[in-house]
């Protein structure tokens, strides 16, 4: 067990625990806030692995934008302070979700645990920020660009839908 | 900037620049703040700060107390007999002021008491620093009111073109001619 191992295990535990809390809590806004902790801990994992650019972008995009958007949407609803019984799922749903989650966990564990044995101790490595940029705009440039076009199309479509509903298109978030 | 984004560039940017210029100009100029407790304020003439009492002039006529709109003046007095000064003369009675108090928690600074006083016993003083922590302590008695007499400014000079005061114009008039004998009345009386 190196220091990196401990750090990675700690970040991973926090990420997993807060993710569980995020889906089990009855407070809607608390769920979003636990999601922040979870995403932040995932960023911590990246950081331990030496992929600081990915970690920072994770924080910038997910915590800074996506969760803010989620919270904004929650504020538009009547999310009460305290447990919200209206949004809690029925026991059947809960059981199904638990089975599904357990299945996914088992699947991932089956794939990743043997891999972890091969890799051994946690190492700082990865291509680094420069290497990442070169890979992204060299090897993976076509998927990257295709993804950008997809997002752009989604953006334009969203604008069009908003414009249809309101009569005129305006770039409101 | 907003207006610029809207397209009416002419109204937006110059307006913002003017705003910046105005504040910068003010920054360069001296400030207007008067540092009150350190520097005495320059009060205008005839400031109504507090009402001072010249007790010697007061005859306890009660005019001020009666005219006061919110009844904030308290006067107590008693009559004293002044023995006759000449043999065979009559004893006189005069009012002696026992108490003169103004409750400045009620006073509304209308100045009617100062106006109606026929013997110039009440004056406006510009002194204003007599705040108290308890409202009951704003009831000021004769001696405190008398202390403020020292702060009463001399009466302001009259305006240049104003009419003379009544006393002065009366001096200038010729003395009244002696009364004509009342002939008619005398005759009537005889008849």
């Amino acid at each position, binding site marked *: 067990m190196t220091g990196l191992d401990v750090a990675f295990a700690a970040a991973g535990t926090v990420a997993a625990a807060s993710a569980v809390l995020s889906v089990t809590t009855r*407070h809607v*806004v*608390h769920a979003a*806030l636990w999601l*922040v902790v979870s995403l*932040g801990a995932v960023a911590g994992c990246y950081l331990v692995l030496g992929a*600081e*650019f990915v970690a*920072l*972008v994770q*924080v*910038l995009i997910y*915590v*800074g*934008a996506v*969760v*803010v*958007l989620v*919270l*904004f949407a*929650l*504020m*538009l609803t009547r*999310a009460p*302070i*305290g447990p919200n019984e209206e949004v809690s799922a029925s026991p059947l749903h809960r059981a199904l979700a638990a089975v599904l989650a357990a299945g996914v966990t088992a699947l991932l564990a089956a794939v990743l645990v043997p891999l972890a044995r091969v890799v051994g101790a946690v190492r700082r490595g990865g291509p*680094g*920020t420069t290497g990442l940029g070169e890979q992204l705009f060299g090897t993976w440039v076509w998927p990257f660009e295709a993804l950008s076009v997809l997002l752009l199309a989604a953006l334009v479509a969203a604008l069009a839908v908003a414009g249809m509903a309101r009569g005129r298109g305006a*770039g*409101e*978030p | *900037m*907003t207006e*610029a*984004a*809207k397209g009416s560039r002419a109204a937006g940017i110059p307006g*913002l620049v003017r*705003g*910046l210029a*105005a*504040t*910068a100009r*003010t*920054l360069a*100029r001296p*400030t*207007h*703040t008067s*540092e009150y407790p350190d520097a005495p304020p320059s009060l205008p003439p005839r400031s109504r700060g507090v009402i001072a009492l010249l007790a010697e002039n007061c005859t306890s006529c009660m005019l001020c107390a009666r005219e006061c709109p919110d009844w904030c003046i308290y006067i107590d007095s008693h009559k004293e007999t002044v023995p006759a000064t000449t043999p065979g003369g009559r004893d006189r009675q005069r009012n002696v002021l026992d108490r003169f108090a103004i409750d400045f928690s009620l006073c509304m600074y209308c100045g009617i008491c100062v106006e109606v006083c026929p013997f110039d016993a009440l004056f406006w003083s510009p002194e204003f620093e007599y705040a108290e922590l308890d409202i009951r302590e704003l009831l000021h008695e004769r001696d405190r009111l008398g202390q403020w007499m020292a702060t009463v400014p001399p009466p302001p000079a009259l305006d240049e073109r104003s009419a003379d005061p009544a006393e002065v114009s009366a001096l200038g008039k010729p003395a009244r001619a002696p009364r004509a004998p009342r002939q008619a009345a005398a005759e009537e009386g005889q008849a």
Partner: protein
Amino acid sequence: MSPAVEVLVRTVAVLAAFLVLPLLVGQTEHKVMAHMQGRLGPMYAGGFHGWAQLVADGVKFAQKEDVTPAAADRPVFRLAPAVGLVPYLVALAAVPLSPGLVGADAPASAVLVLAATAVGILGTLMAGWASANKYSLLGAMRAAAQLLSYELPLVLAVASVCLAAGSLSLTAIAGAWSPWWLLWQLPGAFVFLVAAVAELQRPPFDMPVADSELVFGAYTEYTGLRFAFFLLAEYAGIVLMSLLFAVLYLGGWKGPLSGDLGWLWTLLKGFVVSVLVIWMRVAWPRLREDQLQRLAWLGLVPLALLQLALTGVWVVATA
């Protein structure tokens, strides 16, 4: 110096800067704003021109009762000031004053600073939601809408500078800076300044805390030290954004005698920018909510994209 001691010294230095520089900016705001309005500002505390006014304010805040509303979501309510404040501390540690003088020299410090400020926004949202107060909630919603809109031009403007310097490290960016950038990156600098002021919710972009309609927005229910933390976060934000502007667009420590006094140049340039931020507050009225959004999406985002394209073309052409 052993690593542990060095870390300790760096932490203490960053913490000291974090506590002193915002007070300096706050005092400057007191005085500059007062004189711009023909007033004197604080004159008593500390003796000389009220220099200790903010220290006195801090003492006052520390003495006040720490009230948590009965209907509030207690843990979130109490945690929010920390979430609002700590990211700025982290971000300030990554801003270099001179090539050797930086709290923590991260290789991607430009992204680190942006990510940290993005997290700081969460504090406002948590405060607004957890206060159980309509004004707070409305303030937080306005803040969220505003910050979402202005995050994009801010990131794009910084991306342009990073592209021009070919690095994500603030130290390297300022190192690559040349006076020619003043013209070349001018649109980006404009976008950055406007978006930064909006991000800090400073006037003229203070719709989320518009006192005439929302009392004090998301911070309405806060008292005592927690409220002071939010105020400190605002002024730390001004310090951070001003220093960042100085490093990104004004060349940081470049200037005469930059070998010895580079850090002073950075601080000086940052101070000038923060005075500009204060000046904007005094001179301009508040923008309406729709004007805010219009400015961000129709004004700043296209301008930032244009700057990005310009930078890209120039970099490729001269490479």
